């Protein structure tokens, strides 16, 4: 059976005809759209490496059938930087060594963008750790990740107030 799926990916409208409904959103992004920044880790919703924003909310793209996402807006790691300027979360991950091998990093960053958008962490490190608990880092860069998310939160809050650099 063939299924037509229309998505807005990183601001670009895309339509694709799937020959098989088993394609996940993750596989659609990586193998059909060549957006390989989103990583496949466990492929069963436990590691968070495949985190993207779907309609502004962070999800495991490995656990969503692409067909189920018809009509949705998707934001991946490739859509964060604007004209060569890094997103504040990306810049903060670099500044605070929020990674080692880098495999989980796109998922970590997308999860952090989602967390900051939800406004549920504030400047509390424990709430940031809890809010990022769906994203595993086997290198153990958690200390840097927490610092990066806190700093990015301050930068984004400053921008909203118009006091950021």
């Amino acid at each position, binding site marked *: 059976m063939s299924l037509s799926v229309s998505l807005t990916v990183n601001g670009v409208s895309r339509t694709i005809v799937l020959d098989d409904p*088993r394609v996940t959103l993750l596989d659609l992004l990586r193998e059909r759209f060549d957006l390989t920044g989103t990583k496949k880790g466990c492929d069963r*919703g436990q590691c968070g490496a495949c985190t993207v924003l779907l309609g502004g909310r962070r*999800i495991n793209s490995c656990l*969503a059938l692409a*067909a189920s996402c018809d009509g949705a807006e998707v934001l991946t790691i490739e859509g964060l930087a604007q004209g060569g300027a890094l997103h504040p979360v990306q810049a903060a991950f670099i500044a605070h060594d929020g990674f080692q091998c880098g495999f989980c990093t796109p998922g970590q960053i997308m*999860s952090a963008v989602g967390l900051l958008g939800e406004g549920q962490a504030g400047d509390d490190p424990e709430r940031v750790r809890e809010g990022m608990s*769906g994203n595993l880092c086997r290198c153990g860069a958690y200390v840097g990740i927490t610092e990066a998310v806190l700093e990015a939160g301050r930068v984004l809050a400053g921008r909203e107030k118009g006091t950021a650099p």
Partner: protein
Amino acid sequence: MYAFAYQKPATVAEAVKLLSADPEAKALAGGMTYIPVLKQRLARPSAVVDLSGLGLAGIGVSGGVVTIGAMTTHAAVAASAEVRRAIPALAALAGGIGDNEVRHRGTIGGSLANDDPTADYPAAVLALGATLRTDRRTIAADGYFQGMFTTALEPGEIITAVAFPVPEKAGYAKFPNPASRYAMVGVFVARGPQGVRVAVTGAGQGGVFRHTAMEKALEKSWSADALAGVATPAEGLNADLHGSAEYRAHLVGVMARRALAAAG
């Protein structure tokens, strides 16, 4: 995943028709359990009927009842100002399921239809004496849960909403598995129109159950002290590498006291 046909109906009636016409077809809600099940080839449905187009998400409060649409995500319940006001313990429970990525997709209806013995929602539904609405009837919580992964749902029957009577007091506490956050033991206590009800999830081999000895003790006195002499038999409780049945029995008491403290 084995091959399957994909259907995304737009109405409940159409979904019921698809599921009833083909016993091998399965309903898909948020997919947080079912997609991994498919990936591990533990199921081989002829068709997957996606329920996300039925308009079953949403929360309403009226006449002392909180009604939550079956496709409402855990994140939506956790963040709902109405649920937090009416039944804060229910919002807190929803906010402690899995992680944020899971809470943005997983649904209350999916969780209840699956009836995982370590799921959180069954404890709330049973302790609060909720009513499950389906495409064809209403089912009281006491008659709904029939053992691990087993419910009163008929083939092709779809949960459309869950109605929770607002309690005077309610609290939930769980001992989460350290890696996956499922409830090794979770206890939901409630005092309301149906009296005192205590439901235990995670611990029982037969899934969620009511702790009648605790209910009797708390009817007399709504306090942690009242539970001091109440025993929880280890018989029939789960035992695995995370903890013995005796350990879980002990945790039931600890979680019940924490749930009471949370309920106030």
